[in-house]
C-alpha cells in the first residue's frame, strides 16, 4: 500500500467530520472516494495533505508516518494535491506556469528566476506533452478553456514529481466534452506512468469508468470499499444515495 490511514479522525468541536477512517490505496491504482455532499471528502483530503491536523489516527505514505506534518513537507514526500498556481500569476504563459511549479521548492532563493526557467524548460515542455497541452504552451494561462485549465493544474502537480496524486472533484463544473477529456487524461496518466491517483468525484460515470477501487464515505465514515462492481451492488451504498435523493447513476441492469 502506498497510502494507508488507520482510525483517522477529525473533529471540529463536537462535530466529527472524518470518523475512524481506514483507507488503503494500492500503488498504481486509480482509487476514488465518493459520497454525498458533506460526507467528509474534502476534510479527508485536507488531513492527507496536512492542511488539517487529525484529531486522532495515523496516515502513512510508503510506510512512513505523515499525519500532522506540514503541507509542504508532505508534498515533498510525494503526496501532492492538484493546485492552481495559475490563479497566482494569471499573466504567465502556460509554459512559464509549469516552469514556476518546477522551481517552486528550490532551496536557492536568491537565484534569478529567468535563469532557472531556462534550465527547466525541457522538463516543462515534456510535462505539457504528457497532459496534451504542448500546442498551447505560449498561451496565457488564464485564457485556457476549463478542461485545459484542469490539465494545466495536473501538469503543475506533476511538476512536483508526486508518487500519489490527489484530485478533488476534477470534473466539477465541466461540460460533458471537457469531462470526458479530463477523465481520459487521468486514466492515461495512470496507465502510461503507473502514477497512483486518489480522487473524489460527483460524476458517477467518471467514477465507474476509470476506478480500480472505490471507497464510499458517509457522515465521515467509510461504509463500503471495493471494486466498482462490489460497490455498485452494495445495498447500504444504495440506501445512502437514495436516502439523499441522489440515486446512483448507471447501475448495472
Amino acid at each position: 500500500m502506498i497510502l494507508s490511514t488507520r482510525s483517522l479522525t477529525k473533529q471540529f468541536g463536537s462535530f466529527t467530520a472524518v470518523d475512524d477512517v481506514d483507507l488503503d490505496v494500492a500503488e498504481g491504482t486509480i482509487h476514488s472516494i465518493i459520497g454525498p455532499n458533506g460526507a467528509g471528502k474534502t476534510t479527508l483530503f485536507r488531513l492527507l495533505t496536512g492542511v488539517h491536523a487529525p484529531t486522532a489516527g495515523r496516515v502513512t505514505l510508503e510506510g512512513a508516518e505523515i499525519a500532522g506534518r506540514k503541507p509542504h513537507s508532505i508534498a515533498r514526500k510525494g503526496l501532492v494535491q492538484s493546485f492552481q498556481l495559475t490563479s497566482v500569476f494569471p499573466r504567465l504563459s502556460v509554459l512559464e506556469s509549469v516552469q514556476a511549479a518546477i522551481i517552486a521548492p528550490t532551496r536557492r532563493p536568491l537565484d534569478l528566476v529567468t535563469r532557472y526557467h531556462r534550465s527547466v524548460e525541457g522538463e516543462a515542455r515534456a510535462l505539457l506533452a504528457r497532459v496534451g497541452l504542448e500546442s498551447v504552451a505560449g498561451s496565457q494561462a488564464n485564457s485556457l478553456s476549463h478542461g485545459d485549465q484542469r490539465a494545466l493544474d495536473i501538469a503543475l502537480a506533476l511538476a512536483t514529481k508526486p508518487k500519489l496524486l490527489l484530485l478533488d472533484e476534477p470534473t466539477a463544473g465541466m461540460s460533458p466534452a471537457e469531462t470526458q477529456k479530463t477523465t481520459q487524461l487521468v486514466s492515461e496518466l495512470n496507465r502510461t506512468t503507473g502514477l497512483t491517483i486518489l480522487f473524489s468525484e460527483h460524476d458517477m460515470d467518471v467514477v465507474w469508468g476509470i476506478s480500480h477501487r472505490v471507497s464510499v464515505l458517509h457522515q465521515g465514515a467509510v461504509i463500503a470499499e471495493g471494486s466498482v462492481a462490489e460497490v455498485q451492488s452494495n445495498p447500504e451504498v444504495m440506501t445512502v444515495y437514495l436516502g439523499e435523493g441522489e440515486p446512483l447513476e448507471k447501475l448495472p441492469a
Partner: protein
Amino acid sequence: MDTVVIEVSGTLSAASSLFLASAGLTLIFGAMRVINLAHGSFYMFGAFLTTSLVGFATGARFWWAVPVAALAVALIGAGVELGVIRHIYGKEHLTQLLATYALFLIFADLALRIWGAESRAVPVPKSFFGSIEIAGEQIPKYNLVIVGTAIAVGVGLWLLLKLTTLGWRIRAAVDDPESLEASGVNLQLLFTVVFALGALLAGLGGAVISPQIAVTPGIDGSIIVGAFIVTVVGGLGSILGAAVAALLIGASETAGTLAAPDWASTFPYIAMIAILAVRPWGLFGQPER
C-alpha cells in the same frame, strides 16, 4: 526660484524617510496580511542601536553601525515572528492589532529601560557633514544619504520581488498561500524570512535617519502614524505604491508649510482623506476580496 531647490530637496528627504519606514510594513502586510503596529518599534530599535554603536565618535564607525543595527533588528523581527506573529496569521484584524499593539507597548518600555528617557543624538558622519551647493542653494549633505538609501531600498526590493525565486514566492504567498504550500514551499519559513526582512528595512530606516532626528522613546509612535498613512494611501502590499505615496505625502507637507504654516501638519491627513475618498483601497492596492 532659488527656494524651489530647497523645497524639492526637503520633500525628497521627507519622502525618503517615510518610504524607508513604510516599505517593510507594506511588504509584511502584502505577504502575510498582518497589520504590524510594532513596526515603529523596529524603526526605533534601529535608531537606538545606532546611538549605542556609534557612541560619541563622529568617525567612520557610523558606516558599520548602520548595517549592524539593521541586522540586529532583523533578528529581533525573526524572534517576534516565531514567538507571536506566527500564531495570529489568518486571525481577524482586531486580534492582530491588539497583539501587535501589546508588542508595541512592551518594546516602548524595554527601550525606556535600556536607553532611558533622554534624547540621544547620532553625529552626522564626517564625510557628509555640512551642506553642498545645488543650483545656488545650500542643501544638507546628509540628505543625499537618506535619499540614496531610499532609492537603493526601493530598487533592491523591486529587483528581489521581480527577479529572484524568493521574490516569486513572496508574490505567490500574497495571492494563494495554500497552492504555494501544496507545491512544496515551506510557508512558515518564508513568512519568518519576510517578517525579518520587513523588520530589517525598518531598522535600516531608523539607523539611517538617526543623525537627523532626536532619538527618544516615542519616535516609534510618531513614525508608525506616518508609515501607516503612506502604506494605506499607496495600497496595502504595494512597494511602488509606498514610494509614490511617500512622495505625495512629503509634497503635501511641503505645500502645507508654504501655503499655511500653522496648518502644515494637517496637510498629509487631508491628502490621505482625499485620496482614500476616491480610491479606498489606495493608489496601487486592490479592493479586498
